[in-house]
């Protein structure tokens, strides 16, 4: 088989046994017009799809677009070519995490990492750890704001003090090690 282009690679990540779903894009811009976060993205979702198809790998991976995707799926339900655009953004996230090629200074990848770690450790998520661990990577102002809000919520009884844990944690960890083939964390 011929060496896959970048757009083939993304198609492979989308598990596109049925051909590259991005090839049917007619560049109409419905996704971009629909996207609630588009003004913060350096490239619109339509443009990212165009760039993937043009195999502009470096430019695509360097963009912040897919980290800004809010997973609202509005583009996906509206796309006239029935492309799952939100899913494409996930594929790009996966690609960039697996290959460590995302833009520097983005909070998204760090947050994803912290979140996954927390859950694999205890089976449930725990807001305080999440908030603090990622916030160190952002500005002091956000950290103070977040801490302030956390305190307020704590006073209202809405912030957990101890991390929650599921009961059959050992089973859970062994279960996870069957899909991520790493030895269970002790």
């Amino acid at each position, binding site marked *: 088989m011929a060496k896959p282009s970048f757009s083939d690679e993304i198609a492979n990540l989308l598990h596109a046994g049925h051909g590259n779903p991005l090839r049917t894009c007619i560049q109409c811009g419905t996704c971009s017009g629909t996207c609630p976060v588009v003004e913060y993205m350096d490239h619109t979702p339509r443009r990212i799809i165009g760039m993937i198809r043009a195999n502009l790998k470096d430019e695509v991976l360097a963009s912040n677009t897919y980290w800004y995707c809010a997973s609202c799926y509005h583009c996906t339900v509206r796309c006239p070519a029935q492309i799952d655009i939100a899913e494409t953004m996930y594929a790009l996230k996966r690609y960039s995490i697996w290959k460590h090629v995302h833009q520097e200074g983005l909070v998204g990848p760090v947050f994803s990492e912290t979140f996954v770690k927390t859950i694999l450790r205890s089976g449930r998520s725990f807001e305080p750890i999440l908030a603090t661990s990622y916030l160190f990577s*952002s500005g002091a102002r956000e950290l103070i704001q977040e801490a302030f809000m956390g305190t307020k919520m704590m006073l209202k009884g809405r912030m*957990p003090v101890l991390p929650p844990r*599921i009961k059959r944690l050992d089973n859970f960890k062994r279960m996870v090690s069957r899909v991520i083939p790493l030895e269970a964390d002790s």
Partner: protein
Amino acid sequence: MKEFAYFPGCSLEKVGLSYHLSTVETTRKLGVDLKELEDWNCCGATTYFHVDELLAYTLCARNLAMAEKDNLDLVAPCSACYKNSYFTNKHLKEDPDLAEHINYALEEDNLNFSGQIEVKHLIEVFVHDVGLEEIRNNVSMPLEGLRVAPYYGCQILRPRKDHEDVEQAEFFEDLLSAIGAEPIPYPLKLKCCGGSLILSSREAALSMVRNLLQNAEDNGAEVIATACPMCQVNLECYQQQVNQEFGTRFSVPVVYFTQLMGLALGIPAKKLGIGKEIVAATPLAPYAR
């Protein structure tokens, strides 16, 4: 009596505690038996799927398999939990290879997914399984005159393309009308609040919150009702930061639809977790007992 497996999700343990309390109270009052999954785990939220979809399926499948053991449909009050569980259920049912592999992992916890149950969002249970007529019949304190903005958020509706209401849902309004409240129309009711971005892309998320609050307020909402803990926290707890950021003066209470239902059903406010708000839910006072 209708019985369901109840998957509260991580947020309902603390941040969304009032959602949990009011869910338990309202379902009990309406004769719905929620049996909490005995050892549920996190659904993976939106974040998990970035890294490893198979792992995300595994997490959700564990919860589904536990519900299957009791032969009960799974109910999730959190929209993210609902979406993840719903699609895991769908994908695993459609792809036997995938299901086989996930079951191989589930073996470690003596569980098995066989695709026997359905996944529902809590609001669907009220609207479809209990029924609006039944709810209407049980209202003892109709929330007359209370102008509520029903906020759907994203994942109750999307990406379910088969869903007839995907661009123009009305069931939340119908539910609010059934408890005597006045649902106000406002164009952004189906728009994203930016909940999944609040920690990672704060600036974007705050502006999305601002737009939503503005739109609800412009259309005369006294209170916003949500059906998702992520949306609730995002819209309520970040109001002050929105005000700082944009020089606005929002002070819109954001409550769970179950809390409003609870009041209408005559359940004491305290039992519904009312009072835990950061933006005080003053407009509810006249209806509280």
